[in-house]
């Protein structure tokens, strides 16, 4: 099974050894104030396949907000709160400590218990027990990492969420879904013809996407649980750029039913087609605002491509972006306060983030062919497509621009990322 994997990167620090030469570990950035945390090995986990503490530690490190402390060589490695000698950990500047155990229980299952302790106050911040099947060890670790993240940063964790993306290996295209750390990739659909523009339904159970399998772009909606899929739109010409409304009841799509690409809305069951934009220009890449009131889209109605907005049930559009000669692919932050898009900055296509209240724009990405920005469900991170040595790769950047990561596919191109919603 092919796994794409996050890498920390930058030129400052490069670890190589015979054992891990295939894996480039580089790190770039990090929050100014990282929270030092000791994530201790879980007790009794010998018969568990996954090292749960290492999955948690990797999640926390990757966020850039934590400094995970080395625990190897420590004389005491407690597995329950009462065993913790706090002075040993505060000496390492630990602000928080996690301890836990994995026990085998009836039916080949595991009981996972964990405690998050405040190292200074010596009090418990969170504690949980889970009864799980062996296959749920990774997802349980992500859940625990989410709880730690939430308790210590005050914001929702995203480690248990999933991402979708397109791979191209040889001539084969595949829409895949993986855990947010790149593990557990599963193919949703594959084809010898291109697949583009995956879009998660707000409840995370379905993906809309554009497939060229019939030698033209057609929009499908596919259930991730049953695998059943329906044609959402197959009109004469192109059918592309699906974007779900926040309540999941309809999608904005782009058709070339007349001649130019125009924005329409369509009910999720494929009925109720309605034309939203009516221009002689290109109108494409629609995105609903989180309150569902607006559809933002790219258009060259003013000459060069810029971002415009129109009421979700139609009306007269108004222009949103004014700087630069090419601003496309609008994507809202989950709180609706910021808009990410792709700007052509002197021939380099980069992810830009615009504060909608102030109008201030920050260029977040550093590539030259970056596209498809997608916010993590907590709004702290943007995933996007980039090119590394001519090959498609995914990258992520924190919304403050300080932490950067890359997600590579060892054997092919990876592109068109879409970060799924927080579920359960």
């Amino acid at each position: 099974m092919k796994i794409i994997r996050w890498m920390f990167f930058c030129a400052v620090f490069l670890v190589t050894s015979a054992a891990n030469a295939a894996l480039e570990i580089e790190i770039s950035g990090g929050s100014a104030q990282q929270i030092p945390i000791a994530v201790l090995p879980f007790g009794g986990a010998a018969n568990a396949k996954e090292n749960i503490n290492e999955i948690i530690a990797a999640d926390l490190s990757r966020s850039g907000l934590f400094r995970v402390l080395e625990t190897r060589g420590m004389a005491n490695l407690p597995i329950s709160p009462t065993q913790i000698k706090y002075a040993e950990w505060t000496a390492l500047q630990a602000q928080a400590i996690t301890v836990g155990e994995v026990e085998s229980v009836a039916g080949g299952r595991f009981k996972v218990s964990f405690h998050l302790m405040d190292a200074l106050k010596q009090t418990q911040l969170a504690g949980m027990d889970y009864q799980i099947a062996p296959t749920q060890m990774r997802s349980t670790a992500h859940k625990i990492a989410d709880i730690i993240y939430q308790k210590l940063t005050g914001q929702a964790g995203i480690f248990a969420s999933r991402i979708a993306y397109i791979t191209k290996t040889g001539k084969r295209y595949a829409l895949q879904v993986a855990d947010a750390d790149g593990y557990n990739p599963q193919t949703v659909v594959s084809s010898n013809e291109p697949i583009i523009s995956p879009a998660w339904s707000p409840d995370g159970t379905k993906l809309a996407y554009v497939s060229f399998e019939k030698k033209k772009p057609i929009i499908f909606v596919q259930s991730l649980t049953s695998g059943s899929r329906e044609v959402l739109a197959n009109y004469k010409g192109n059918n592309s750029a699906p974007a779900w409304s926040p309540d999941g009841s309809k999608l904005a799509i782009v058709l070339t039913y007349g001649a130019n690409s125009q924005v329409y809305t369509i009910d999720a069951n494929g009925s109720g087609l309605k034309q939203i934009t009516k221009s002689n220009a290109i109108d494409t890449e629609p995105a609903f605002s989180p309150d569902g009131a607006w559809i933002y889209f790219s258009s060259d109605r003013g000459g060069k491509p810029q971002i415009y907005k129109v009421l979700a049930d139609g009306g007269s559009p108004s222009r949103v972006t004014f700087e630069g000669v090419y601003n496309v692919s609008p994507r809202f932050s989950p709180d609706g306060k910021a808009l990410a898009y792709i700007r052509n900055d002197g021939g380099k296509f980069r992810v830009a983030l615009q504060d909608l209240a102030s109008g201030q724009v920050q260029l977040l990405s550093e590539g030259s062919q970056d596209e498809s920005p997608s916010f993590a469900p907590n709004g702290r991170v943007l995933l996007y497509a980039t090119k590394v040595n001519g090959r498609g790769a995914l990258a992520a950047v924190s919304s403050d621009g300080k932490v950067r990561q890359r997600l590579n596919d060892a054997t092919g191109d990876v592109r068109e990322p879409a970060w799924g919603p927080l579920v359960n």
Partner: protein
Amino acid sequence: MQYIHKINTKLIMGLSLAVLLVACKSTPIAPAKVEDKSPAPPVATAKPADSGANTGAVKEVVADSNANNAGNNPLKDPNNILSKRNIYFDYDSDAIKAEYRSLVEAHAKYLLAHADARMVVQGNTDERGTREYNLALGQRRSVAVKKALNLLGVQDKQIETISYGEEKAAQNCADDACYSQNRRADIVYEGD
């Protein structure tokens, strides 16, 4: 990069080693859901999108590559202009250049003489810019070809215009000679 910090070498090496070991295993599919009161079923894979889907579908033809099955079909006779199917455009342009006039006229004549014939015009762009925006740009080129055919009397019902955007583009072009190959509309007939 304002905030550069060091990470613990040993820990990361340990982590990366563990990551490698895990990566080598064929991990069974079992997504999400921590407490398995109602275990989430794994993501179901749809049948490969193109399995058995090709009967009657439009097939791409590359000009000059059909010498073997030319037969009496003028569309596939390499000596017939109808076997020429690619129209190239200038940068940022959807204007059909004079050199393609005879090609367009020949296809118009064929469509007028064969009322049952159906043509798809596929627009293409180079890889610069976003995929969906390029899909819209490529559409302009296919529409330009359709309009030229319309002016010669061909009905809309015989022509469908679509776009592949940058999906068929040569990748990692270093110069305009490479890019220009992607600024193209391709003519494909039903049954090709």
